[in-house]
């Protein structure tokens, strides 16, 4: 029997390989030279430019765009990497409409910002394609620093420390480095192995040793690291996921969206990856969008994203939501799951409509059911255990603004620390912590 999007159950091979390859190809291909020049020409080179202020890593955007105008994308890339060593991935995954492009004066004037993200990608792709690594290490300091987690925060921290002449060992729990860039981002945003290519390129600075398959609290302990190294940076991310707290959550077919996204990213053959006919994604963030869109791209017939509040409260950007809608995802707002029905495996999921009551969100009393043979939970991630001796704040590791934790000699950054859960914020925190570690070790 031929498997199609209309086949019931969780099945692989709903679409042929050619269609899948097309669906998961680079969603926004890189500018060519001419496109880049035309796009760059729109930049006004604003005084004290708002885009720089809006960038968590404070890239000198007008400068790098001017360098593209002047025909030197490699120089532009250097300007970017000086502030953000993961500028290539950030160019792909940053919600630019809420950051640099949202602050662009042309967005305000015309609703048409300078395409900063795509220009950044053009510059960084050009430099990386040239196989150059424009940074060299300073004289060795003899200091050794442990970085836990090879995600954006850890990598940014490690690179900056290596550049300062320190020796860095990165401990990564997973098989591959990259963190969410490798495991947690939609495939069409990170096509052609960019996440690994970027890590390989970054590591070329030298002085960084990567040890995978070692996770904090199991194979390694903070106490041991503190004893063996001059400083420790924790960029461990958020390993846990929030539960729905609706009865039936344990039924087969219900799983965290992050697991599905990671599995998809690591799949060698997308045609072998099973997906439901009726997929329901619960949540309103980027993870929910990535799971929903990719379900659709794998061939699910009906994909519905359900969020308990209004669209304006969703963490996903308008751009992402528009993309989801265009991909055929149905977006339902003001509804929360109350029960998951099915005999062993999920068959239907029941929602209650919500409204804003005096004490918070409350059900209106009206409910509805959606057919579902697969449910993805994307209602937030949590810290997977607080390492001993650290203090928590808002469910994360408490730090000061520079990334220092309650334990001397231990810094933290990225999603595990307080701050917005964005790749670019993680890079900024990792970088700034590295500067502070360097300052404190060389004081």
């Amino acid at each position, binding site marked *: 029997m031929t498997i199609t999007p209309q086949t019931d159950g969780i099945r692989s091979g709903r679409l042929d390989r050619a269609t899948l390859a097309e669906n998961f190809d680079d969603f926004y291909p890189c500018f060519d030279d*001419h496109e880049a*020049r*035309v796009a*760059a*020409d729109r930049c*006004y*080179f*604003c*005084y*004290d*430019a*708002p885009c720089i202020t809006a960038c968590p890593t404070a890239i000198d955007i007008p400068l790098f765009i001017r360098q593209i*105008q002047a025909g030197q994308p490699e120089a532009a890339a250097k300007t970017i990497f000086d502030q953000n060593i993961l500028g290539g991935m950030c160019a792909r995954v940053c919600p630019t409409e809420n950051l640099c492009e949202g602050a662009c*004066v*042309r967005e*305000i*004037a015309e609703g048409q910002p300078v395409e900063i993200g795509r220009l950044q990608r053009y510059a960084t792709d050009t430099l990386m394609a040239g196989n150059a690594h424009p940074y060299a290490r300073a004289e060795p300091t003899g200091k050794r620093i442990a970085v836990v987690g090879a995600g954006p925060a850890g990598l940014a921290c490690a690179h900056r420390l290596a550049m300062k002449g320190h020796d860095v060992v990165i401990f990564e729990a997973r098989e591959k480095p990259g963190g969410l860039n490798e495991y947690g981002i939609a495939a069409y945003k990170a096509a052609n192995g960019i996440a690994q290519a970027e890590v390989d390129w970054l590591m070329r600075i030298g002085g960084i040793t990567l040890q995978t398959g070692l996770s904090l609290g199991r194979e390694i302990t903070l106490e041991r690291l503190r004893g063996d190294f001059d400083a420790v940076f924790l960029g461990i991310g958020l390993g846990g996921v929030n539960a729905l707290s609706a009865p039936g959550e344990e039924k087969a077919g219900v799983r965290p969206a992050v697991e599905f996204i990671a599995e998809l990213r690591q799949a060698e053959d997308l045609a072998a990856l099973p997906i439901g006919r009726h997929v329901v994604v619960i949540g309103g963030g980027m993870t929910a969008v990535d799971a929903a869109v990719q379900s659709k791209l794998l061939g699910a017939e009906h994909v519905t994203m359900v969020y308990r509040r209004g669209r304006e409260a969703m963490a996903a950007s308008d751009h992402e939501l528009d993309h989801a809608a265009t991909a055929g995802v149905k977006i339902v707002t003001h509804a929360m799951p109350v029960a998951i029905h099915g005999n062993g495996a999920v068959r239907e999921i029941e929602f209650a409509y919500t409204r804003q009551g005096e004490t918070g969100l409350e059900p209106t009393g009206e409910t509805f059911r959606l057919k579902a043979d697969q449910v993805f939970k994307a209602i937030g991630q949590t810290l997977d255990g607080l390492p001993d001796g650290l203090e928590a704040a808002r469910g994360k590791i408490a730090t000061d603004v520079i990334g220092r934790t309650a334990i001397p000699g231990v810094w933290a950054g990225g999603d595990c620390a307080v701050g917005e859960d964005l790749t670019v914020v993680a890079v900024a925190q990792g970088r700034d912590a590295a500067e502070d570690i360097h300052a404190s070790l060389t004081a």
Partner: protein
Amino acid sequence: MADLSTNFIGIKSPNPYWLASAPPTDKEYNVVRAFKAGWGGVVWKTLGAEGPPVVNVNGPRYGAIWGADRRLLGLNNIELITDRPLQVNLQEIKRVKRDWPDRAMVVSLMVPCDEESWKSILKAVEETEVDGVELNFGCPHGMSERGMGSAVGQVPEYIEMVTRWVKQHSRMPCIVKLTPNVTDIRKPAEAAKRGGADAVSLINTINSITSVNLDTFSPEPMIDGKGAHGGYCGPAVKPIALNMVAEIARNPETAGLPISGIGGATTWRDAAEFMALGAGTVQVCTAAMTYGFGIIKELTAGLSLYMDQKGFTSVDELVGRAVPNVTDWQYLNLNYVTKARIDQDLCIQCGRCFAACEDTSHQAIAMKPGRVFEVIDAECVACNLCVNVCPVEDCITMETLPKGAVDPRTGEEVREYANWTTHPNNPMAKAAE
């Protein structure tokens, strides 16, 4: 619909747009296509003396500069005069004029600086029954090295001498085409008039190198690693051409001498500007070479609409209309005081006005919290740089202070018209009468 028909020194054309002497007018095929498209006239590409034709380079003849989206802003060329046999050109010219009697047909000429050469070519051209001749004293490359083109145009005495020969040996109307590669464009125009020219046309192209290849270190356009200066034209040269046209139009020595305006005219508006500064016809080349002959429809429709809007029924009402307003710096009103005004509703907070004023001008714009930019009247000299760098049209404008108002910069009242000639700081000042 305004009447665009033109009578320029007795040469009639249905509209004032002529194709300039250049590659587009080198042969019958192109010129017929131009006339079919609606061009009012052509100046046939320059003919040389009888004998073996000139040869051109076989590498690039053109170089260019572009905007970011490859909009061609300036073009340069090292092509010489026609490289086709004289007799072939003459036969084609005669045929085209016969087939298109309502269009202006002028032939550009360039022969050595001796009377016999001119006498001989004029006789041959006269037989084609064209409307007139244009003397190419402008071409700045190649031919100038052989004592022709701009080598003549840079010596007023030669211009006068040759023009006189032409008027002596021909009954055809004579237009003298001038080179801009001179220090004072009025002198060659005066010489042409003295020689009996019926009109001048300008500008020819400007000596130029469009760029340098930074790998081979050769100028562009490059021929086998070397480059020679070419003649620059296209939109980039229009301001230079407008000034030169105006200088001739307002010079008492040449006032009233008909002018055919040339230099970067690309749209009807450019053409109307040339005409307002005194050009009776406008010659176009680069725009046609960039976009093809089809632009004539915009050129004619645009000028016609503009004239209708202004209530002009004939191009004569437009020609020269701006000339009385072109003056010398010394006569500008020093008591005309303006101040920059920033429209906060239109302002997009880019801060370019601030950077320009703070870094390079008079520190007359304040940057306030929330990226609000405001003019400091006490510092503003009304230089207009903020207006020029502002990306939003009409966001920054210049407000004129009324008479009697106090200029906060000088603390003085705005008074009646007064210029440098009577200013107390001028050591040569004459007492105001």
